[in-house]
């Protein structure tokens, strides 16, 4: 089990952007009204934001980053690392981070790279960026995290289409001698890689005419091999089996009690998963904020998005002890225990 801590890293600020356009679950006429109501009640998504044609994750992250840099009053030239974490980059080649470095007007001395992760991306990203800060290699950094998942879901797949929303976020992390350590517990189980997958379009199964063929999988599920595929029960059971032990190991390692934590922010997978995890942890409802009702499952953006939409006031005005827990595609999961202190957190932007 990968339990470790990273010293001297401070979250300076956090911003996010979502598309202006939204879809309501009640209007999803591919399924019966009863099913739509059941979906809202149990999966929790009432509406979600959907990118218009041509809008990318990088666009949303860019808007968020611009606002964040301005709110922090940072000089763009002072940023020496940019990491873009997503599964929906602008191009297959080159890395989106390089394009963003130029768009944001950062210096050529800035390091930029992509990390291709989904649901667990925010927590993994904090560990990657945090590690580089802790070595002293970089001081001011931008971590841009998000996905446009609605581009790859099939309208005729009730298991994925009504679940996902789009969002992009930017987190400013910087070196601080006084910052308390970030403590992580990161895990992987690649044997479950087929539970969340897009089969065609990359090296293992290159794009071919067959990739586009729509196929009926079961009642209410028709999709192609270019569409996102979810094995709901496998993911559900994986989450119920792995997440709580991962969190408990982290709490034990750090000697932390659940009541010492102000908020637990889960990846917004679905309401049923998150509520079951909350009950398993015996955590109070007030401690576990949720944004899935209004934004859906926003992949790697779901944790920072929930922090902005649900905890903006608390994060901006004082110290908060947070436990962030992310889990999903890979299969990959992890949690981090951290403390924030009056971070810059502008309201969520519409783009």
């Amino acid at each position, binding site marked *: 089990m990968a339990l470790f801590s990273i010293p001297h890293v401070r979250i300076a600020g956090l911003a996010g952007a979502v598309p202006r356009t939204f879809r309501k679950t009640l209007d999803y006429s591919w399924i019966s009204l*009863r*099913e739509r109501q*059941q*979906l809202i009640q*149990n*999966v929790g998504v009432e509406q979600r934001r959907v990118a218009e044609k041509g809008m990318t994750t990088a666009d949303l992250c860019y808007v968020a980053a611009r606002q964040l840099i301005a709110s922090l009053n940072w000089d763009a030239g002072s940023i020496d690392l940019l990491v873009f974490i997503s599964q929906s980059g602008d191009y297959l080649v080159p890395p989106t981070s390089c394009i963003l470095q130029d768009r944001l007007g950062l210096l050529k001395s800035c390091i930029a790279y992509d990390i291709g992760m989904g649901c667990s991306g925010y927590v993994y990203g904090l560990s990657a960026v945090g590690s580089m800060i802790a070595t002293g290699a970089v001081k001011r950094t931008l971590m841009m995290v998000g996905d446009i998942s609605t581009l790859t879901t099939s309208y005729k797949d009730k*298991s994925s289409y009504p679940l996902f929303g789009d969002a992009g976020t930017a987190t400013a992390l910087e070196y601080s001698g006084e910052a308390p350590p970030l403590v992580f517990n990161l895990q992987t189980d690649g044997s479950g890689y087929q539970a969340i997958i897009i089969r065609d379009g990359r090296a293992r199964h290159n794009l071919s005419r067959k990739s586009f063929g729509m196929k009926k999988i079961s009642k209410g599920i028709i999709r192609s091999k270019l569409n996102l595929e979810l*094995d*709901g*029960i*496998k993911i*559900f*059971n994986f989450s*119920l*089996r792995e997440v709580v032990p991962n969190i408990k190991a982290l709490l034990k390692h750090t000697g932390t009690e659940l009541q010492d934590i102000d908020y637990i922010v889960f990846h917004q997978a679905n309401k*049923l*998963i998150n*509520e*079951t995890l909350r*009950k*398993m942890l015996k955590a109070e409802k007030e401690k576990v904020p949720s944004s899935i009702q209004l934004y859906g499952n926003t992949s790697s953006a779901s944790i920072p998005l929930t922090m902005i939409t649900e905890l903006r006031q608390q994060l901006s005005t004082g110290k908060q002890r947070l436990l962030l827990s992310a889990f999903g595609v890979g299969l990959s999961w992890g949690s981090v225990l951290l403390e924030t202190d009056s971070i810059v957190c502008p309201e969520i932007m519409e783009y």
Partner: protein
Amino acid sequence: MTIEEFIQLVEEEFDDLDPGLLLPESKFREKFEWNSINALILIAVVKTEYDVILTADDLIRSVTVQNLYDIVKGRIQE
């Protein structure tokens, strides 16, 4: 856990089910609109109450409430 307790738990979890409707020999897929969300609800309540994980295969090979109960009961004792 008795089968009566198991049935009571399931009935409480599903709004569609009137109390007393479910019997050990009931084919659960026919008692209410069985779909993937209901499968997740059942998995969630069994995990929360008994710390047992029901897999997709468990659900596929179960026909009656008794079948489900036997799987859960067997795992509790393991």
